């Protein structure tokens, strides 16, 4: 579905294919020498919701950081729409507004109101002037059901609202890819399910490519087109589950038969990795 209402059609619609080829990341090669990602390859189509599931500390976030340009990679290369992001000779990708990250604990600037936060991207890139950006920000917030709280500071609204505003802040830049790093981790299950529906609704509107990191299997099946189960450190792809549940989805799906079958299919692999990660964790501390 194309964009509705006040938002003009997305310029970057249909873009955002990520190609991760043989990526390896070694932290601190001269010292502790930790192999975080080992020869990982993954193709993500434009407009796909790709869910990455793996135990915490397995190296998923490293992968996201490499795409976003926070961390360099040691070997391999990553392409966005056929253009090299990082690879040999250019280990660190440039940071840019075509790949916007939503962070685990939220990174709305607490010193700016929600509207200013959302308007920040276009203003700082010089695409829009302050008033225009603010207007657009308020429009987009209203669309996400946050019309009344545009002038509030992030500390004044609930974490659920803040998280939605953060996604709006990402979307206003018309990114090719939205990178989400366990954004709902700290929320309780019921709030989470409401947040999921809000995210799905935004996705149905924009069809932006989503790279979503989580360790919650149900969340990933509910949201994703494809669930990639990762091994514990070093990070490799272990199993890929295609999710063919039609969109738009709502919470009824969570208790449907097809959902159950998918959970059943992926559960074994995830559980195995969880135990492995757990045992590794115990060993490390002993």
């Amino acid at each position, binding site marked *: 579905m194309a964009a509705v209402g006040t938002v003009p059609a997305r310029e970057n619609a249909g873009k955002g294919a990520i190609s991760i080829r043989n990526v390896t990341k070694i932290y601190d090669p001269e010292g502790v020498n930790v192999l975080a990602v080992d020869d990982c390859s993954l193709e993500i189509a434009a407009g796909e919701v790709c869910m990455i599931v793996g135990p915490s500390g397995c190296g998923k976030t490293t992968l996201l950081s490499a795409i*976003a*340009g*926070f961390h360099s990679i040691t070997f391999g290369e990553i392409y966005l729409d056929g253009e090299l992001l990082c690879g040999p000779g250019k280990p660190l990708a440039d*940071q*840019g*507004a075509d*790949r*916007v*990250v939503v*962070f*685990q*604990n939220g*990174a709305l*600037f*607490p*010193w*700016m*109101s929600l509207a200013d936060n959302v308007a*920040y*991207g276009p203003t*700082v*890139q010089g695409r829009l002037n302050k008033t225009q950006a603010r207007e657009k920000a308020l429009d987009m917030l209203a669309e996400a*059901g*946050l*019309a*009344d*709280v545009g002038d509030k*500071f*992030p*500390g*004044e609204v609930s974490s659920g609202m803040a998280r939605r505003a953060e996604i709006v*802040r*990402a979307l206003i*830049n018309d990114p090719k890819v939205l990178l989400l790093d366990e954004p709902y981790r700290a929320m309780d299950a019921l709030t989470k399910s*409401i947040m999921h*529906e*809000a995210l*799905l*609704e935004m996705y149905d509107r924009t069809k932006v490519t989503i790279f979503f990191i989580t360790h919650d299997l149900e969340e990933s099946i509910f949201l994703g087109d494809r669930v990639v189960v990762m091994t514990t450190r070093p990070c490799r792809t272990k199993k890929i589950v295609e999710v063919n549940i039609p969109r738009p989805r*709502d919470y009824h799906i969570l208790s449907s038969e097809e959902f159950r079958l998918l959970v059943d299919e992926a559960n074994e692999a995830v559980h195995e990795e969880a135990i492995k990660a757990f045992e590794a964790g115990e060993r490390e501390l002993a």
Partner: protein
Amino acid sequence: MSEPVAGQPQPGVTPVQGPPAGLGMFLYKARKNLTGSTPYLMMGGIGLWLLTWWLLCEVFSVPRFEKMPGPVAVLSELFSVEPFLGISVFTQEYYQHIYLSCRRIFFAFMIATGLGVPLGLFMGWSKTVRDYAFPILETVRPIPILAWVPLAILMFAGFEAPVIYLATLASFFVTTLNTLLGVDSIDESYFRAAGCLGAKRRHIFWHVVVPGSMPFIFTGLQISIGVAWFSLVAAEMVSGDGGLGYLIVDAYMNNVTVPMVIGMITLGFVGWITSALVRLVGNRLMQWRVRALALEGR
């Protein structure tokens, strides 16, 4: 799915009766505060303290305490139109001393803030600046400010400059280190988020580093103004000419105790006012934090 937004009345929920407005709210709060024992105990505490002071110094004239002026002596002197010892709220001299001290504090505080905050920000922002500047700062810092007194007198001519220099030095260290701490305290994800949104390095400085370290800067400034008063008093006592510290030490030299205590009380009061002012400015500049804290405090 579009959720109803907070602000629209929802069916099936009993409306919460709003808080009373204006005078009603004031009366409600006053009533609530006065029903507990706390306000009475607090007043009792102050009263008890004044009473002890009075009994010790003026009524029973306990040995050693008798040398000190009691609260009655101090207060009657402080509020007499024709003070016996020359200092009261009706004399110009009293305000002259306050003015002198405040002016020195003002200059010292401004210089220290003007130098310390930018230095701290740059140290936090650039690793190179920090690597060079931090060791020097840390080497000089353990030297107590008051050890600088003789050097300050030698380095600066006159009465005014050494005093201001000492107060400045004291608040400079506190301000710089707290600002640095403030920059360090900013979550890495804010830098990353700004980078993602297309901010350049200079944008990050102005939009992330500066506002993000504000809370620590103002904590630092509050401590810094306290430290400035601390060193100002010492400096005025040793080398000064006028000012509240001088008032105290001058009274001591002349063997009169009442102006001494008046000086102490005034110092406490003025010091408290200045730090309240800093807090006020901080709160004005950091509405985002004040509001969030107010909600949490509930």
